[in-house]
């Protein structure tokens, strides 16, 4: 009899400690909803091909973090504390990394790379090693289109401020308009804290979802803002860029941008370092590692740990709806600003520039450039705008990193 009682008690203990019991405690139902949402994102990634390389790790991180008692991620470890530094200065953004290393779960440890701003610059290293800045060097005016498309970031800042959001939330939502996932994560992880109603995961989800929707969001805006005549412009061939020019470019950009906006240095510096590795021709092994293995490893760490921050208390809120709404506005305004400046350049150049390449200024490399190519070919099937659109596209990457640096310089945590 004693054996049976002991057996039943053990079973009851196991049941109480199980994750299933965790769903039944106060607020446990929210985790079930979050798990269901993670299934939706997994479906979008696998079946619909929505940015699967990032959306799948993010959605799986979302699943792991919402399993009760799995203890893989502890949001309370990431709350800012206040300490007095040895210099006497009071630091109200203190995170106890020693505690995280000792008691944190796997996803806590991986999330350190996000919070310490390690992953986004390393992703930029890989992007730089894959990017050919030749079209931008051949036509430096493309920089203007990359700058104009950042209008989406700053105009969305107004929208977020109107909704009464904090300066950190405004900056984090606005950066979605840059259409650059690593930059959005970089800015939001630096600005957002527990007191904000949105989290890094929310921003990342919105950013990558909209980046996946570039081919759907951009074309109607591009068609609405341009005439058939403008869309039919066939642009001349770009000049050949020498190897020395390609070698000077990353060094020049790093120096100018980092001196001007030091907060943009980690992103721009690593982007250009990756590009220099590629263009130098003497570091093929390192360049290939940055393009492939390193990039893939960081993508896994970044995706799954950012997904872990998507807890019910940050997602099942009205603010999440506001982020989604403002995110699409940011994206649309960015596209519109690029196309409008493209129209100005069309007029100034006497009809030699196709304004459709302006929409590619929103980063999202190379998807946005492909959209310019596709919409251009709808008018003239033999028109090949891809290389011309790659100029504003890569300029947009630099532009969004600069815009991120500006936001981080203006908004202090």
């Amino acid at each position, binding site marked *: 009899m004693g054996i049976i009682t002991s057996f039943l008690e053990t079973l009851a203990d196991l049941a109480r400690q199980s994750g299933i019991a965790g769903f039944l405690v106060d607020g446990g139902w929210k985790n079930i909803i979050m798990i269901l949402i993670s299934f939706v994102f997994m479906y979008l990634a696998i079946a619909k091909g929505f940015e699967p390389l990032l959306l799948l790790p993010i959605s799986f991180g979302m699943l792991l973090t919402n399993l009760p008692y799995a203890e893989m991620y502890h949001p309370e470890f990431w709350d800012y504390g206040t300490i007095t530094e040895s210099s006497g200065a009071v630091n109200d953004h203190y995170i106890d990394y020693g505690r995280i290393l000792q008691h944190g779960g796997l996803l806590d440890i991986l999330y350190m790379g996000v919070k310490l701003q390690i992953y986004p610059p390393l992703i930029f290293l890989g992007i730089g090693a894959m990017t050919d800045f030749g079209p931008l060097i051949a036509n*430096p005016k493309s920089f*203007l289109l990359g700058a104009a498309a950042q209008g989406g970031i*700053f105009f969305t800042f107004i929208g977020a401020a109107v909704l009464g959001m904090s300066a950190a939330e405004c900056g984090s939502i606005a950066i979605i308009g840059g259409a650059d996932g690593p930059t959005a994560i970089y800015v939001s992880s630096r600005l957002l804290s527990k007191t904000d109603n949105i989290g890094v995961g929310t921003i990342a989800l919105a950013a990558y979802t909209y980046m996946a929707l570039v081919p759907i969001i951009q074309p109607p805006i591009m068609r609405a803002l341009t005439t058939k005549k403008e869309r039919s412009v066939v642009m001349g061939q770009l000049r050949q860029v020498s190897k020395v020019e390609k070698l000077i470019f990353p060094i020049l950009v790093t120096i100018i941008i980092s001196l001007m906006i030091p907060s943009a240095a980690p992103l721009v510096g690593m982007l250009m370092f990756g590009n220099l590795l590629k263009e130098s021709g003497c570091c093929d092994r390192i360049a290939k590692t940055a393009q492939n293995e390193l990039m893939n490893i960081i*993508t896994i760490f970044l995706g799954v740990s950012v997904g872990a921050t998507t807890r019910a208390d940050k997602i099942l809120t009205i603010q999440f709806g506001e982020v989604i709404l403002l995110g699409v506005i940011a994206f649309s305004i960015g596209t519109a600003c690029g196309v409008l400046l493209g129209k100005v350049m069309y007029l100034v150049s006497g009809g030699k520039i196709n304004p459709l390449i302006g929409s590619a200024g929103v980063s999202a490399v*190379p998807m946005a450039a492909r959209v310019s190519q596709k919409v251009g070919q709808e008018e003239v099937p033999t028109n090949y705008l891809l290389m011309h659109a790659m100029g504003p596209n890569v300029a947009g990457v630099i532009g969004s990193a*600069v815009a991120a640096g500006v936001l981080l310089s203006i908004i202090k945590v």
Partner: protein
Amino acid sequence: MDRCFNDVAQLLLKGTDRHLDAGTVSSVVITGLVVVFIGLILLILFVTLYGLIFKNINDKKAAKIKAEAEAAAENTRKEAENSARSAPAAPMEIEDGISDEIVAVIAAAVAAMSAQSGKKLVLRSVKNAKPSRSVWASAGIAENTRQF
């Protein structure tokens, strides 16, 4: 100057600030756009400047190479005429789609090398090279860049 720094200092926001007033928000928007444009316009100036310098250098190099190629082509023509008189040459294999001008330029380059090395080089065939990056490699790069 002091006033300028004061204005910038006033623009700095604390992350927790809520209900930002219209003046602050417009300052952020204007400052942000102006700084991004100034940064990228500076890059345009520098890239255009060194682009012009290199274009100039490359044009000079191209002109020199062209002059050498023309001289070499003239020599080749003369040599070809001479050799045609002495013995019939084996027919040159030229792939479809390659123009006579390209063949002439390659022949000129070979003749120039021939003149430099002192060895008699013969152009036997002209074929299109296969692309350095295979279709699979291109597809791999496209796949890896898709998420950005």
